[in-house]
Structures are given as structure tokens and as C-alpha cells.
């Protein structure tokens, strides 16, 4: 996808530094204020967060990394467990979805028979069904099949997330010329070999796009793991934060702010590392309509 914002067919003029730049700079600083406030408040004492949210930390209210230390060890469930499970679930689910649905999509678009059609249209249909529709029955089914651990929940993610991935991959595979696969077949490459050695490498851009969308979904997902996982043993970051905040009464705001900061850091690192792919992925994913 394009990476420069200037229309490529316009007669090239130098980007202007003027009123609009200043206006956008001000808006952008305002836009980041909530995130900066979390960072600032994570360094303040618990009591000063609700009463003086917008005040800079001073000698009295400055906590240093105290909130971080407290946040990580706070409660009866260590925060690093949640971080670990979040990573595990996100990585395994995304990998599983990419491999399984790209294979399915290839089969669907190359063998367009009744079975393929049924699977394809069911996948499309699943994209408009809200999670609330299936949440009770899904959680029950998952528990019944022992899919309620971080190691097995990727199967559920594959099942519920298959729709979008199959749809996007099928759209892409349609555009891959058949000739290269035929050439591989003539050269004696079997079906499995053709897919993994020929088609899959060609699909790389879409694999990245779909991968990004799945990572963003699984990492931030709250309700599905909340309902499916055995919460006494396993939490993810969103569940952990909801658990600390949701238990009203005396919430340790300092610790919560520290944990929110910690949970945003991987997102920002991920964003800085693959911004180009994320934006391309979003644009590609949006064209599903």
C-alpha cells in the first residue's frame, strides 16, 4: 500500500509548512493527552490520582516506580502470568488461524464444489453474527471439550475468527494466476507441495495483513477468553485489568495505572515496528464490505 500521503498523480509540490501543520500538531498533542496522563499518573500516589488527575507529580505525590512494583505483585494473581498467557494465546491463535485458513481458502477457491461453497458461504455469514449471540453456548461447548486453557483456546479463536480470514484469503487466491501452480504440478509437485512451496510464498502480503488483524483482535479481546478460560488459573491482560478495576471499593488506582502503562508498551513497540504493515492490513481488511 502507499506509504506517502501526497497523491502520486498530482504535480509534485513540496509539502507546505503552514496553518494546517500547526493545527494538526495541536490536535495531535491533544489526542495523546489521555495516554500521557496514564503515564504521568502511574508515577503518583494512589490518593492523588482521583483528586488531582491533571497535576504533575510533586515531591509529595511522586512515587517513582513504586506503583509498578506494587502492581506486578498485587493481588493473588501475578501480572506477569497474565502477560505470558496473553502472548501465548495471541501468538498461537494467530499462527493457527493463518495456516489453517489459508489452506482452507486455497482449497475453496481452487476446488469450487458444493462442499467448498457451503463452507465459504457459512464463513461469510459468520462475519455478521455478534459474539453475544453465541457467547453462552460457545463457552459451554468449549468447557465441555476442555478447550478452556490458554493452550487449547486457539481452536476457539480459529473457529470464531475463520470467517474474515477465509474471506480475505479466498479473495487473494482468486487473483493468483493458476499457471504457476500448473507448472508446479507438471514438474511433479504434489498438492501439498504445491501449496506450501508455491502458493504460500505468493500469499505473503495477505498473510501479513490477516496476521496483523488477528493479532489486534486476539490481544485486545476480553469477553471470549473471560467466558471460556478457567479464570481461577488463567487470565489475560484485559481480564486482569478488569479484575483489578472491577472489584470496586478500594481500587489501587496507582497500581492500575502502572499496569495499564505496562500493557500499552508492547502495543506501541509493535506499532512502531510494523506500522507500514498495520496500516496496509487495516486498509486491506476494510475492503471486505
Amino acid at each position, binding site marked *: 500500500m502507499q506509504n506517502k500521503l501526497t497523491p502520486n498523480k498530482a504535480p509534485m509540490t513540496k509539502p507546505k509548512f503552514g496553518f494546517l501543520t500547526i493545527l494538526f500538531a495541536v490536535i495531535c498533542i491533544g489526542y495523546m493527552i489521555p495516554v500521557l496522563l496514564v503515564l504521568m499518573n502511574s508515577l503518583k500516589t494512589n490518593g492523588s490520582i482521583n483528586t488531582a488527575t491533571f497535576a504533575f507529580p510533586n515531591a509529595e505525590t511522586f512515587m517513582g516506580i513504586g506503583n509498578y512494583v506494587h502492581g506486578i505483585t498485587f493481588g493473588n494473581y501475578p501480572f506477569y502470568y497474565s502477560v505470558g498467557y496473553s502472548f501465548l494465546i495471541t501468538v498461537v491463535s494467530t499462527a493457527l488461524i493463518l495456516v489453517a485458513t489459508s*489452506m482452507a481458502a486455497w482449497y475453496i477457491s481452487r476446488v469450487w464444489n458444493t462442499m467448498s461453497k457451503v*463452507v465459504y458461504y457459512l464463513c461469510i455469514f459468520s462475519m455478521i453474527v455478534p459474539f453475544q449471540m*453465541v457467547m453462552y453456548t460457545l463457552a459451554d461447548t468449549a468447557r465441555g471439550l476442555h478447550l478452556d486453557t490458554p493452550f487449547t483456546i486457539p481452536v476457539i479463536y480459529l473457529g470464531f475468527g475463520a470467517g474474515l480470514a477465509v474471506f480475505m484469503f479466498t479473495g487473494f487466491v482468486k487473483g493468483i494466476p493458476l499457471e504457476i501452480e500448473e507448472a508446479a504440478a507438471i514438474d511433479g509437485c504434489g498438492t501439498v507441495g504445491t501449496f506450501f512451496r508455491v502458493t504460500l510464498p505468493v500469499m505473503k502480503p495477505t498473510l501479513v495483513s490477516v496476521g496483523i488483524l488477528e493479532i489486534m483482535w486476539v490481544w485486545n479481546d476480553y469477553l471470549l477468553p473471560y467466558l471460556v478460560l478457567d479464570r481461577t488459573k488463567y487470565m489475560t491482560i484485559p481480564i486482569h485489568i478488569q479484575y483489578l478495576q472491577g472489584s470496586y471499593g478500594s481500587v489501587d488506582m496507582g497500581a492500575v495505572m502502572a499496569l495499564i502503562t505496562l500493557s500499552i508498551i508492547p502495543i506501541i513497540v509493535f506499532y512502531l515496528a510494523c506500522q507500514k504493515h498495520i496500516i496496509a492490513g487495516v486498509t486491506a481488511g476494510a475492503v471486505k464490505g
Partner: protein
Amino acid sequence: MAKKKKVDNTALRSGLIRNTMCKWWPLFLLPTFAAFCIGFLYPFVKGIFMSFTSFKTMSNYKWVGLDNYAKAFSDPTFVHAFWLTALFTVLSLVIINVLAFAIAYGLTREIRGANLFRSVFFLPNLIGGIVLGYIWRMVFTGILSYFNTNLDLNSTVGFWALIIVVAWQQIGYMMIIYIAGLMAVPNDMIEAAKIDGATGWQTLWNVTIPNMMPSITICTFLTLTNSFKLFDQNLALTGGNPVTATGVKLTELLALNIYNTFNINWKWHGVAQAKAVVFFILVAVIALIQLRVTRSKEVQQ
């Protein structure tokens, strides 16, 4: 439609690949389809069935016909949540799309730092709903403390706070799509309008926007369904509070209402499932109507 036909032809033409490939479905198709049955199809069908029963667990149920639906529609919390969600969806749809379009339009005016600004606007979209809700809960608690109130006491503020949070999160996403759309508007059409003496507004209204209908379709579709299905932000920001004397949660949207209904006690499971079916039908109908309406306005290529 034309596309579908093409696939059929190419697949048939290539008997070379197709014939040997057909028998490989257990490897290629089955894993995804099996997971799809567990993660979607079976729960979906079972969910529809359970909405006609009174159930404690999925194996312990009694057929009650349309009772659950009658109860759902006579539940004041559900009716309130429905109208609130409708209002919320319309307001956030307009606000997000107008602002996202304006930002996208500004950022494609060849200004310095456009790439940096774009990155900043997109960032909140990567933060999950729960975390986002708590970030803003802190901000609003801080602001409202000057007025001696908070999000759990004032439903009007709570409702608008929810709109602000959703706008903050989604403007960046829609902006990206609008930027892609704006770049695709043929430059010669804009030049031609200029030569014909059209003002900036006229060009925007009569040339740029009609050419951007595909992007506008996508964005309205996405904001509409996203707002209608909103859950995480609602739970984290206001939790549906405040509650009236009759038990109606004043900032509770439909998705949260369904979730809370499941949690009352097991006698409400069937009602909650019936609400979920109604919710699904609403989402599906809205999505289809909306797609049809905007599609028909698209410029013919």
C-alpha cells in the same frame, strides 16, 4: 457476480490441479471447518434452539416456546438499552465519519508531518476496549471531580463520554480508509472542476465525495456495526451506571444488557439468549439494508 463465474471457469479449466486436489479436503478444509463448527456453527444453532427453552445448563432445559421473547420485549431494561443503542449508534456514526473524513481531507493537502499525524491518530485504535475504557474513566473522573460528580452518578455525561471514547478510538481507523479513498479520486476530474470554475466546496461535494462512495460505504458499515455491538468500552467506562429505582441501567447498551441478563440468575438464561437472537437479527438487518443503500449510490465505474 462476474467474479464468482470467473472462479468457476478457472477452477474447471485447471483439471490438472483440481482433480488431484479434490481428495485432499481432510487436510486442507477439515481443520478449519471442524474448528468453525466448534467455535461458531454449533453454538449458533444451539443458541437459537436454547432461546425457545428455559435452561439452567445446556443439557438441562425445558421447551417454553416464545415465552422468552415475550419476556425480553416486556423487559424495561432491554427496551431502554435498545433505544439508547440506536441513539448512540446514530450519533457516533455521524461524529466519527465527519471527523475522520475532515482529518483525512486535511492530511492529504500536502502538508508537512502528515505521516506523523496519521500515526498519532491511528494509535488509539490498537489499544483494547477494556484498557481504553479505564484510561478514559480516569480522565473523566478527574474532570468531573471539579463538578462534584462522577460517571456513576450522571448518565448524560456517561453517555457522551462513551461517544467520545469510541470516537477517539475509531477516528484513526476510518481516517486510514478515507485517505486511501481520497488518493484514488482521479486527479484530472478535480483539475477539470477547477478549470470549470468550481469552488473548493463544490469540488468536494460534487466531485470528491461521489467518487469516494466505496470508502464511505465501508466506513459507515464498520462504524454502524462497531457501535451497535459495543461492549468492552461500555463495561469499562460506565458499567451501565447509574441505575434507576426501577433497576434500569441508564448507560447500558444492548450488548452489555444481554451480558448482564445472563448474570442475573439461571431463570434469565433463556431470556438473555432470546435477547441475543433479537440482537443478532438487528445487526444482520441493519448491515444488509445499509450496504444496499450505500451501494446503490456508488458511482458506476
